[in-house]
């Protein structure tokens, strides 16, 4: 029987459990008029019965399917001829892969070796046996759980509290998923990064000033030094982020002040959505805006001023990225400024402060934690931004703080390292993971600092 059929059967059983549980609870107190004698509403008894039907059955079914392949593999290996049982691990893996392909039908059985064919037959037999056993176990558990819950129903049973408990656990599990995903990402990146650091020392990576990830494939190859000093990438990222923030923070903050304090309702209704449109533009579009419009514009402006501006300069990428980030800063700052109580403004006005004095001395300090939070959020966005810099910042890993030159960033290098056919265990590919780890750690630190600042000011201002 197919697993989906079993799941549907369990669900039907669950629905039935709900009806039966509900009906029994009502019947126990002598009809709908007596329900006030029940501890909980009748539907809670129904839910409890249904949960007892569904949870054990689905849980066992899931666990069975996770674990049965392991048992089957063991059994199939044991059936193989003795000389094939003691193969090295990788060859055994290949053999098992063959068997699996025959089982799934992607490899015609006739083309396989006889041992493989017999192993596949064995596999199929065990698989159907396991499926049947799992399905019947799940169904039996569902029935048994439902029956048990149904029998336990009495007017004193605290069904409501039981359901509450299950809801609590479900919510906790959902929040765990987010945490576990984060941990999973950290571990996978960390694992690959550690592989990289086995080849390239950590100190070379963090303090080296030359980035040239082309590895020599032959001893006499020219120009492929394989240097993994990430400092130029860090400075490039830093430079572009700084330019972006220099654009986004003042413009975002001032437009937030304008919106929150000066604009009347009609102006606000027009400007705010328009600002938020900026956040909705795909970053690729920003990217070619930077590469095709802003870059050449800055270049010709530079020529006019007698400056040498690279067509893929840090300035154009940072400028466009700053524009992109404006709505992040402005909408968070706007929320924070609007949240400052009117009584504080009244207090300042009553002392004879002008509007801008009130904003500068009273409103902004009170809104500062939120504004700092918004800015740091924007910084981590800027550091992690990829598309704009891929298109507009260039690939040359140059160690410079001159915004008119082309620089490259961590994200750009990750993209170029992983594009195309690469050996997966070469330092060149692995270095992408090390860069990813650095990026992750940097944004994590930023967020921790942001939280600390926000908390400190909050204590002071409440």
């Amino acid at each position, binding site marked *: 029987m197919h697993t989906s059929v079993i799941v549907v059967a369990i669900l039907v059983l669950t629905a039935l459990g709900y009806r039966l549980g509900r009906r029994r609870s009502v019947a126990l107190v002598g009809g709908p008029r007596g329900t006030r004698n029940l501890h909980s509403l009748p539907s809670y008894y129904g839910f409890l019965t249904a949960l007892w039907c569904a949870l054990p059955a689905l849980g066992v079914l899931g666990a069975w399917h996770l674990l049965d392949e392991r048992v089957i593999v063991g059994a199939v290996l044991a059936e193989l001829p003795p000389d094939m049982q003691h193969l090295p691990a990788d060859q055994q893996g290949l053999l098992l892969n063959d068997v699996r392909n025959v089982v799934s039908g992607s490899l015609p059985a006739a083309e396989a070796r006889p041992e493989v064919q017999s192993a596949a037959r064995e596999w199929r037999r065990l698989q159907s046996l396991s499926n049947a056993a799992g399905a019947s176990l799940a169904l039996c558990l569902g029935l048994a759980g439902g029956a048990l819950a149904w029998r336990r129903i009495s007017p004193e049973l605290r069904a409501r509290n039981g359901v509450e408990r299950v809801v609590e656990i479900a919510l906790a599990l959902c929040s765990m998923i987010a945490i576990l995903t984060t941990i999973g990402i950290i571990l996978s990146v960390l694992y690959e990064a550690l592989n990289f650091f086995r080849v390239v020392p950590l100190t070379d990576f963090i303090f080296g000033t030359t980035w040239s990830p082309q590895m020599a494939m032959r001893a006499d190859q020219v120009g492929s030094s394989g240097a993994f000093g990430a400092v130029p990438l860090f400075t490039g990222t830093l430079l572009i982020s700084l330019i972006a923030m220099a654009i986004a923070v003042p413009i975002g903050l001032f437009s937030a002040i304008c919106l929150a304090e000066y604009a009347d309702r009609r102006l606000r209704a027009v400007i705010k959505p328009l600002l938020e449109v900026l956040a909705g533009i795909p970053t690729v579009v920003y990217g070619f805006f930077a590469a095709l419009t802003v870059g050449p514009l800055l270049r010709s402006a530079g020529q006019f001023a007698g400056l040498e501006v690279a067509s893929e300069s840090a300035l154009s990428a940072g400028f466009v990225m700053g524009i992109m980030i404006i709505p992040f800063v402005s909408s968070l700052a706007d929320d924070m400024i609007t949240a400052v109580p009117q009584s*504080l403004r009244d*207090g300042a006005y*009553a*002392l*004879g402060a*002008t509007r801008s004095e009130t904003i500068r001395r009273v409103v902004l300090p*009170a809104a500062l934690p939120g504004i700092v939070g918004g800015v740091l959020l924007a910084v981590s966005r800027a550091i992690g931004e990829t598309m704009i810099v891929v298109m507009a910042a260039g690939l040359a890993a140059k160690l410079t703080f001159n915004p008119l030159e082309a620089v490259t960033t961590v994200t750009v290098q990750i993209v170029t390292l992983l594009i195309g056919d690469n050996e997966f265990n070469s330092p060149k590919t692995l270095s992408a993971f090390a860069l990813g780890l650095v990026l992750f750690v940097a944004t994590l630190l930023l967020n921790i600092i942001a939280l600390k600042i926000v908390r400190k000011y909050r204590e002071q201002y409440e």
Partner: protein
Amino acid sequence: MSTEIAPTDPNVRIRVPRARVAAAADDSQPGSKIETKTVGQVTVADAVMTARRVNVHYGEKHAVKDVSLDIGRNAVIALIGPSGCGKSTFLRCLNRMNDTIDSARVDGSITLDGVDIYEKRQDVVQLRARVGMVFQKPNPFPKSIYENIAYGPRIHGLAANRAELDEVVQTSLAKAGLWEEVKDRLDHPGTGLSGGQQQRLCIARAIAVDPEVILMDEPCSALDPIATARIEDLIDELRQNYAIVIVTHNMQQAARVSQRTAYFHLGELVEVGATNQIFTNPRHRLTEDYITGRFG
């Protein structure tokens, strides 16, 4: 015949009849005829502020109707009346705080030392420095105690250097009866004080810019009885130097702290008189009903 006046705040348009602007100065003399339905003497001999035929509209709502009233120097006047009777709105006219509300419209004339405060050339910011205000809920700035007091003197340039500023902060806190309690922790946040202390901090903040009039909008309604008693004592002391207008729902409080009492009812000023006369021998039926607790 009316002139249109463009106030400093572009959100509010105020129309003041030209004749009345001119008449306001004459009316400030006691004994002169004032067209009013109010029972009792609305004028006083030594008025620091005069209000003549003030009307306030919030959009469609007519919140204050034809109110004329003098605010005497070195005296406390209490504005009492049931909720929504317009006493707070009238109070907020006296330092043009209604300007911050978009839909508010104020007609009539209000003078401070004989100068119309709704006049075109009147600097609202300067006006509010001369007519300070204390609010219903203590609203200290999220800054240190010192900075709360120093804020006003700083923006008005009242202190030339740090020593003078320290002096202003100390005397203001001392006048508000808070100096002894906070002198060792001036750098602590003002929001960390108790409710009564916060309110006295707000009073000290208002005093620090050296106003002529202090408006108080139910300053004790969020405080416990002990803190209230301290504020009331403070109000009595402040009378030496300032004119005080206090809105209160607490009639005992009005009786305790004020020399004159004005009773508002549905936006109209029903009766004004010496406080002991209002509370012992009210002349208007509505006042009597309110005082004796028959309604309100």
